[in-house]
């Protein structure tokens, strides 16, 4: 009931959401007379974020190497264009 109050959602809908979170191991349910206090289980969430972050860092390191390759390619392209222009100007002067 207390958990449902801040939301524009029915009590059964809230229970459904809580059940999904509980099944995923993200919350746990206690017992206190008529109340069923839920506790947030932060560990699995933190673990999931950690995996994503280490995966991200692995690929980010590769992509930074790719940034350097792309920078070289752009510089090369620019140089080639300048050389072509130079050749053309030389030709048109003849």
């Amino acid at each position, binding site marked *: 009931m207390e958990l449902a109050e801040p939301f524009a959602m029915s009590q059964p809908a809230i229970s459904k959401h809580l059940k999904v979170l509980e099944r995923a191991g993200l919350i746990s349910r206690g017992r206190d007379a008529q109340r069923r206090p839920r506790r947030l289980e932060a560990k699995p969430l933190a673990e999931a974020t950690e995996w*994503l972050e*280490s*995966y*991200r860092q692995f*690929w980010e390191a590769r992509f930074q190497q790719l940034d350097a*390759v*792309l920078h070289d*390619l752009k510089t090369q392209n620019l140089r080639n264009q300048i050389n072509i222009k130079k050749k053309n100007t030389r030709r048109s002067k003849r």
Partner: protein
Amino acid sequence: MKNTGTLKVTTPTDREIVLTRVFDAPRHLVFDAFTKPELLKRWFGPRGWSMPICEVDPRVGGGFRFVLRGHDGKAVGMRGVYREITPPERSVHMESFDDYPGESQVTAVFVEQEGKTTLTATVLYPSKEVRDIVLKSGMEHGAAESYDKLAELLASPEAQGSSQAA
């Protein structure tokens, strides 16, 4: 050099990992960097790794073959087959590692805007379990260790059960 963007990694569904990254280059150059061996060799290996084998046949039904070698001499082989390839916009390929079971589908989309290219790569795994193993494999401890761990995890009965079910 300056970073043009930061990689974003999301998991929109149980079986997917989506990577989004902006590169400060027109997309034909970015596409080349993903499909030309002489360019791939310069960035695809984790830092300190070499790529003694890097072959790409960028056609539908064609594919690629990579062997990456770490400083300790450990080699990791992977291969793929193109299902779709539309330079410089899009490619779809199936990808697998020599030593581990499971094949993933990789869809890469390159969008250019004002000289910059946004890459969106969607990796679709055969099951949630295989995807989570890849995420869990601790990529930060150097590729060799993580590939070892991945092999171990994929060989576990839990992972085998799930990939057979997929």
